[in-house]
């Protein structure tokens, strides 16, 4: 079975919000209707977004590190938002595991948003229905697009390639390999929601050098060696094998 998902590399994300704007641009122009923006230039701007980049500071100054953390619907394999929906507007697709909302069936009761621990669902204040990331379902199957563009808008726009898209149930897909080999993890695994989207942790490349590796023990050019070899009756040696 297929389970499409995103894998987001926190080691690479620079927090530029390109995925946020491209997501909004693609999805607000789609046939499902615009994603509302209220007071866009006013004091308290608010609106519907499927994707946000948040920033966290880890540690205490001066030992701190900033982690930029893109957050969107995780398309859980056990989505808690789906069974609570009274109308069946929220559903998980059999064929590719994408969790979607049928905007024509949704009554806007917000119960699914209570049942999502990640806060991935938002009520659109204009259309009065629940909206969430669709994994650009109107893009990834579009045969009018060149094949390498059949990816979610956020993945297309990421300048550092921090976002990968693919089938996490296919063991040989890029995303599965990344999860397996680069320690991909899920958010809040304690609730048993089995999020499909994975995150790759910050990874620091460090070289381990021991002190005795910094100095060659039998360096023939060292002061001591040269003194020893230049002593009367003893010439310099090469590899302690040859003398001249």
């Amino acid at each position, binding site marked *: 079975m297929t389970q499409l998902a995103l894998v987001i590399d926190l080691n690479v994300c620079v927090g530029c919000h390109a995925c946020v704007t491209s997501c909004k641009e693609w999805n607000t122009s789609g046939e499902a209707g615009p994603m509302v923006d209220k007071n866009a230039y006013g004091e*308290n701007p608010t609106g519907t977004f499927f994707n946000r980049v948040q*920033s966290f500071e880890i540690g*205490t100054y001066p030992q701190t590190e*900033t982690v930029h953390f893109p957050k969107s619907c995780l398309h859980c394999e056990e989505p808690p938002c789906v069974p609570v929906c009274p109308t069946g507007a929220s559903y998980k697709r059999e064929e590719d595991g994408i969790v979607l909302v049928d905007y024509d069936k*949704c009554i806007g009761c917000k119960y699914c948003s209570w049942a999502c*621990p*990640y806060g991935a669902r938002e009520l659109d204040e204009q259309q009065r229905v629940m909206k969430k990331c669709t994994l650009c379902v109107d893009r990834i199957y579009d045969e009018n697009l060149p094949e390498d563009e059949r990816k979610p808008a956020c993945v297309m726009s990421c300048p550092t390639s921090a976002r990968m898209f693919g089938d996490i149930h296919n063991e040989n897909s890029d995303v599965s390999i990344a999860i397996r080999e680069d320690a991909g993890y899920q958010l809040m695994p304690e609730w048993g929601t089995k999020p499909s989207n994975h995150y790759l942790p910050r990874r620091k490349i460090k070289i381990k050098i021991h002190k005795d590796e910094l100095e060659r023990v039998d360096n023939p050019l060292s002061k001591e060696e040269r003194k020893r070899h230049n002593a009367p009756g003893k010439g310099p040696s090469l590899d302690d094998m040859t003398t001249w």
Partner: protein
Amino acid sequence: MHPAFSVIFLTTLIGAGQGLFLALFTGQIFSQFNLMPEQHNSNFYVIGSLIALVLMTLGLFSSFFHLGHPERAWRSAAKWRTSWLSREVIALPATMAGIFAYGLAHYMGWTSPIFTMPGGTAVDATLLTGLLATILTYTLFVCTGMIYGCIKFLQEWHSPLTVINFILLGTASGFTLVTTLSAYMKTDLTSFYASWAIFFTVLALIFRLASLRRNKRIKPISDLRSAIGVNHKNIRQMAQGSMGGSFNTREYFHGKKASFVKSMKVIFLIFAFIIPLVLLGASLGTPSAYIIPLIAIVIQFMGLIAERWYFFADANHPQNMYYQQIS
């Protein structure tokens, strides 16, 4: 969570309506089994059922204000196999129909025995419809409570105490209401109902205090470490990704100061329990003065609105961890 008045009024009004019906039927059962002087005033049951129906209709009406698309509300009966909300949507009109049938049976005077039980008790249509409506009433209580109780990561709600409190608070307010009605209609049952109302109010207080105690000691299962997957004790949000608010900052926060929430707790404990208990005690002695239980039910209902407000405000949603800092 953000306390929405549509849901506060829905749950308190239908709770009082259900409790009122249970009180009526309890009175009937007691007189049926000759534990009390028989109540011949069928108007009492008819008017009582009518008030219960009015309360539940008002609750149902108020619930529509919670919906983004009220005109599609009929769709919400579809997923009763998985959704407690869907089950409530079916149970609410079914209970109202049951209570209507009960009131109708009394109104039409269908009291000729359909069959007689071995003990010699005559079973008539009012008893049968009442029994059916009782089952439906409890079903509705469980559905309403489980809407909140079934969400496991809202730890303050994920407890049997949620359902128990919905049942007990609704029943207590229903019995207080029926005491008023009984005193107004000058039946012999006022003292009987007042003592039951005291019993349920005390019981509801005990269980509400138990849930307050439980929620005070809750240790959150999730923290920022599992929320973003960084294993460090000191994680602080710098930016939540938006400069203004969003649905996430409005729907899951009560938006009030901690002192306000705390004062709400004191208010509901006094209004929903202490004052009504004093007044109900007073009306035990003066069963004909309907003004005393009338004040009791008005104050208790205000207290229950505060209680439900606090119930929502008290629940801390794990998504709030992602929305600590605007900038």
